[in-house]
């Protein structure tokens, strides 16, 4: 799918990360890794530290913390909100939708449309698409997009493949109408035939929760997981990222009339440093225009990785000026979506630590 959105802009982005840092070097003993293997893995994947939410802290808590801050500081007023979108793979409940729960917690009006979207790596791009579509149709001025994931609750501490890479985070993005045309170009593709490449196979209704789905199994040395945790076919995901994403970047650049040179930053989902370097090389994009540092600082926070990438790497710049950016999210689904837009100046563009209230 390809489309163009007009007369809409992002006006603020706030990322919220758990305050506590966990370091790869301290976790090494959980993984049965020799010092040499740990060193190799750290270097190749760009691991150092990541943020993991405390037990009892949900994705929604991180999002509410951020939304409350924007309301408190006056960046956003409750009565301006027309819709609340919550993109997550770690909701509070099977039902009701977490967006309704958040609406209630914040005391938002009954005219606010609440929607949960089950999306991961491409979830920021898809959330923006949904926000733009709602603004096209409704009379309210602003849509609030919440991205939240606590993947730490879907992986085992003793899994050296998944645990070191993940990070928990939430973000709040305000999308609003604007007088300028400000075109946003989107290219989006999905391939459900490859849905098993990244999956939590058990615990829902296809394979309901049971002692069997909860059993922790050591798949290989240092790789412990249950059927209710994330299973990733690393090689399949790697090939997908290198085969399917670069052509989409080319497509969205030509669709929007841009060249690689006219884009200031390529702000991509952050699975790990290795794959992002490969992508940059393959697309002949200078490494400094395609940041790859987020996994080693915060961890891969699924749909929140693009907002965290934006606020961490371009926060200062975007509070003062505008940049032309290419966003791209790719992974679970499989789903891959890329957008080109002018971003900034933003009322807020920063990363804050979550503190339990």
């Amino acid at each position, binding site marked *: 799918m390809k489309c163009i959105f007009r007369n809409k802009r992002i006006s603020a982005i706030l990322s919220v990360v758990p305050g506590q840092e966990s370091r790869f070097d301290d976790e090494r003993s959980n993984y049965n890794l020799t010092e040499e293997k740990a060193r190799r893995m750290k270097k190749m994947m760009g691991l150092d530290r990541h943020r993991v939410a405390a037990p009892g802290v949900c994705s929604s808590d991180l999002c509410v913390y951020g939304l409350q801050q924007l309301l408190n500081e006056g960046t956003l007023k409750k009565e301006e909100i027309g819709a609340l979108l919550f993109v997550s793979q770690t909701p509070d409940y099977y039902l009701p939708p977490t967006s309704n729960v958040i609406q209630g917690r914040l005391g938002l009006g009954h005219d606010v449309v609440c929607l949960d979207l089950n999306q991961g790596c491409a979830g920021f791009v898809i959330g923006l698409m949904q926000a733009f579509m709602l603004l096209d149709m409704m009379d309210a001025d602003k849509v609030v997009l919440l991205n939240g994931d606590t993947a730490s609750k879907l992986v085992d501490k003793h899994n050296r493949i998944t645990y070191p890479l993940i990070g928990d985070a939430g973000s709040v993005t305000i999308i609003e109408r604007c007088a300028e045309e400000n075109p946003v170009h989107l290219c989006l593709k999905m391939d459900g035939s490859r849905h098993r490449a990244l999956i939590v196979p058990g615990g829902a209704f296809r394979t309901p929760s049971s002692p069997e789905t909860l059993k922790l199994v050591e798949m290989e040395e240092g790789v412990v997981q249950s059927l209710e945790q994330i299973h990733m076919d690393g*090689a399949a995901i*790697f090939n997908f990222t290198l085969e399917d994403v670069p052509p989409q970047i080319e497509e969205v650049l030509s669709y929007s009339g841009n060249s690689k040179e006219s884009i200031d930053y390529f702000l991509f989902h952050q699975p790990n440093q290795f794959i992002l370097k490969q992508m940059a090389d393959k697309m002949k994009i200078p490494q400094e225009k395609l940041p790859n540092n987020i996994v080693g600082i915060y961890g891969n926070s699924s749909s929140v990785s693009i907002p965290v990438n934006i606020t961490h790497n371009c926060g200062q710049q975007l509070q003062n000026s505008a940049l032309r950016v290419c966003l791209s999210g790719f992974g679970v689904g499989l789903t891959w979506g890329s957008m080109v837009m002018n971003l900034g100046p933003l009322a807020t563009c920063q990363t804050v630590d979550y503190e339990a209230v």
Partner: protein
Amino acid sequence: MNKPEFYQRLAEILDVDELQPESVLRDFDEWDSLAVLSVLALADSKYGVTIRAEEIRSVVTAADLADLVEAKQK
């Protein structure tokens, strides 16, 4: 395909000085999931081919791997 060059690149991935075509990949300490990803990346970036994980699993020696990459180039 320049085979000696391929073996040299493979040796770098396996963190050894040199590699014989008949070397069995599984015998190397470093032949793990990270090495497999590195081989997939090497095949893509230097040889312009995509290797599937299941194809790598059926490979035994360094020469088998070289042959697999070369066959894909044709």
